[in-house]
């Protein structure tokens, strides 16, 4: 294996070969089993070691697979499954009133538990993480497809973003930044980092947006509020939301709503 081939494999796997290079490479792959093997193991390693992905099998029926299936279907493991189910169900029931023998007392106790559970669910506020997910609303992001000369690159970035390949999206948007400064790119870049919990870097991106002279600069505040929420930093999130409300900035109505829901 030469370094040149290794670079080709890398580009092939991250889909950055040019059309001509791709055709030539695929042609070689057809006739070169050892190259195929190298591509195969490279892909498996990336998928297994990269923390955002997983190296799946392609579902070929093998003998080992069949053996495991048989073991899983046999009574012994079905029994284990029931045991675990039972333990997990027990996790839900917080009361131990079942032993009372008098049916009236039992009924009263049960209704108290029912009321208790009811108010418990009513009162339980959503966590900051849940609020973050609810309010992120990725569908409200502007589409980057077909705009400037860079539309090709931006479209690629958006595609990676929509697929949830945030690492790829970050690489692409960073590159796009060299030539385009539009608010959408800041947002996609910042949110990609946010989704990967790269908080400091995401914060910097949103700060840069806020400091820019773009029309949409104020959107940066909204995403900063969400950033602190995801970090479970309730105080700072509230601070930013209040700023949005007092300044009548982007998403002011949602900010009011969200502020009420935060504990």
């Amino acid at each position, binding site marked *: *294996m030469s*370094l040149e081939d*290794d*670079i080709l494999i890398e580009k092939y796997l*991250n889909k950055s070969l040019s059309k001509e290079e791709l055709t030539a490479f695929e042609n070689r792959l057809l006739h070169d089993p050892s190259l195929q093997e*190298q591509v*195969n*193991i*490279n892909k*498996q*390693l*990336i998928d*297994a*070691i*990269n*923390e*955002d*992905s*997983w*190296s*799946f*099998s*392609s*579902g*070929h029926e*093998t003998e*080992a*697979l*069949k*053996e*495991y*299936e048989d*073991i*899983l*279907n046999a009574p*012994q*493991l079905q*029994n*284990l*499954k*029931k*045991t*675990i*189910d*039972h*333990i*997990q169900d*027990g*996790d839900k029931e917080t009361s131990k009133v079942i032993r009372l023998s008098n049916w009236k007392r039992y009924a009263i106790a049960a209704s108290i538990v029912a009321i208790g559970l009811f108010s418990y669910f009513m009162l339980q506020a959503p*966590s900051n*993480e849940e609020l973050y*997910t609810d309010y992120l609303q990725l569908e409200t992001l502007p589409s980057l497809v077909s705009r400037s000369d860079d539309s090709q690159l931006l479209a690629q970035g958006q595609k990676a973003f929509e*697929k*949830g*390949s945030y*690492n*790829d999206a970050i*690489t692409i948007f*960073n590159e796009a930044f060299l030539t385009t400064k539009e608010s959408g790119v800041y947002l996609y870049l910042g949110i990609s980092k946010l989704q990967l919990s790269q908080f400091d870097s995401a914060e910097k991106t949103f700060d840069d947006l806020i400091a820019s002279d773009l029309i949409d600069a104020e959107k940066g505040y909204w995403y900063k509020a969400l950033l602190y929420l995801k970090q479970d930093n309730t105080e700072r999130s509230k601070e930013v939301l209040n700023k949005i409300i007092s300044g009548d900035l982007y998403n002011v109505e949602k900010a009011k709503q969200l502020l009420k829901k935060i504990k």
Partner: protein
Amino acid sequence: MNDASHILRALVNSDSRQIAHLYEVNFYQVEKFILQNKGQKQDAKDIFQKALLQITARYIKEPFEITASFDAYLFVVCKNLWRRELNKSKRWVTEQEGYEHADENQDIALSILEQKRWELFHEYLEKLSENCKEILKLFFNKVSYKRIIVLMNYNSESVARQRIFKCKGKLIDMVQKDNRYHQLKNL
């Protein structure tokens, strides 16, 4: 008898008292991880159960040793199963395979083989020098060359590339020489 084989035996025998204890000790950590990573409590329960079924089925087929503590191993399996779950949806969009039709036990069986391959790769990754390990982890996690140069203190991209090429070559070489890989490479 170490703690891991003790627990494995309890699983094989569906010993509800011991399993309840196992659940009490470990579930919270798994739940926390899954809630922090786009999941719900029910997901955590499903994953926890699948992990125990996976480990037990493996043990029944061929008793294996857990070198770390059982709890640590269980957590790794749960994390991987959740990673797998999160990546399933992406996979169906990009590659059309009959994956989603797999029934639950078939799916667990597949996850066992994938976990074995994952363990094999990590076993050999751990055998590399610290420097190789570090640079390969960056590389496989798709950190850009620009960033790798800074983090690893290299002079240029071509130096970094050479280094990655060498380390990756070593890793691949060791994996390919292992017989287990031949049963796992074409899953």
